[in-house]
């Protein structure tokens, strides 16, 4: 099976660049497993865990928001923030949750409040998943 070319970048750094077997990513409308030869697509990401699978090993990376693009030349993830799971600091996540809660309190209209509430739920789910 041909390998999948995968680029994983955040504004501050390149996290990963190379050939992989599979990438599982948290799409905003559901989790996806990307295998080589996947159809071209673009999806936004919700806060969650991206799993890079190569040479039989799984490397989990925590991402907070971003986009994934699958094109014929490979998969690209543009993450807002991304940290390897082992290095991830739960305190920053707790901080984010608090910020989002405050934003919800300050939200001007319902549409914005809905969006923020959804974001908060996603963050809480991630927190629970990481704590487990």
């Amino acid at each position, binding site marked *: 099976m041909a390998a999948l070319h995968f680029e994983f970048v955040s504004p501050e750094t390149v996290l990963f660049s190379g050939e992989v077997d599979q990438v599982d990513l948290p799409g905003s409308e559901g989790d996806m497993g990307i295998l080589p030869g996947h159809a071209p697509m673009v999806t936004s990401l919700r806060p969650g865990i991206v799993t890079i699978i190569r040479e039989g090993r799984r490397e989990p990376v925590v991402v907070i928001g971003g986009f994934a*693009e699958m*094109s014929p030349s490979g998969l690209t993830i*543009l993450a807002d923030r991304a940290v390897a799971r082992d290095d991830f600091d739960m305190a920053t996540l707790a901080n984010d949750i608090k910020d989002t809660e405050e934003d919800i309190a300050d939200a001007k209209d319902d549409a914005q409040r809905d969006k923020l509430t959804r974001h908060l739920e996603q963050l809480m789910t991630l927190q629970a998943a990481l704590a487990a």
Partner: protein
Amino acid sequence: MPSLKDLRNRIAATKATQKITRAMQMVAASKLRRAQAAAEAARPYASHMDSVLGNIAASVAGHENAPRLLRGTGGDQTHLLLVCTAERGLCGPFNSAIVRLARERALALANQGKSVKFFCVGRKGYDQLRRTFPTQIVELVDLRAVRVLRFENAQMIAEKVIALFDKHQFDICHLFYSRFRSVIAQIPTVQQIIPPVFDAKATDALAGAAYEFEPEAEDILHELLPRNVAVQIFRALLENSASFYGAQMSAMDNATRNAGDMIRRQTLFYNRTRQAMITKELIEIISGAEAL
């Protein structure tokens, strides 16, 4: 004729200046290393963003309801020049090179009958542009308090730019900054960010690929486009800060060398004066003795 003491003081003053410039050069060199690493780390994200957006833009091209940030307002009457400079001087021609490029562009646009507005990031550019275009500066963002550039800083600027765009304050936005090539070469650069221009080469290979969007293309573009503006600004700011330290380093290197030359000249003059005085005193003693 200055006294010997005056000359000594002058040499001491030049030496003190040289110490300062040398210290500044070393500080700039160490900051440069960090700034350069940050600028290089940000390049892949910005260029990937560019190509992803380019691909998506190509696949929704011609759509009636493509977001305005992507296709522009359709007009090109009002131009916003986003001029990023440093907060501090003592960096050679760094700030003036960016300002000169912006000024030339502004005059060229004005000659074509377009109106021009300025958005200044950084105090130095503001101070220089204020002289030529006192009424056209709409915003000034001061990053003096910022120690380490974060993505949030760029996001804040991007939000202001987009707010202006949404209020129909301008049609086209150009970004001015200095690209970091090497310590001795920083290239003042202009880039159009609204509406974005894509490198045809990068998108060409993939044109025609039909993308599936999840959620809808519109929603994605809605998030991606403002983000792209922020990313491009972020990259410009990082390149700028690396360029700034590079420029400062070479400016301070020159200053240190000039101070060295000056000290040599002053020391020579000091010694010559001292010897002249000794010779004069000797002549006086000898001629006094002869007269007896």
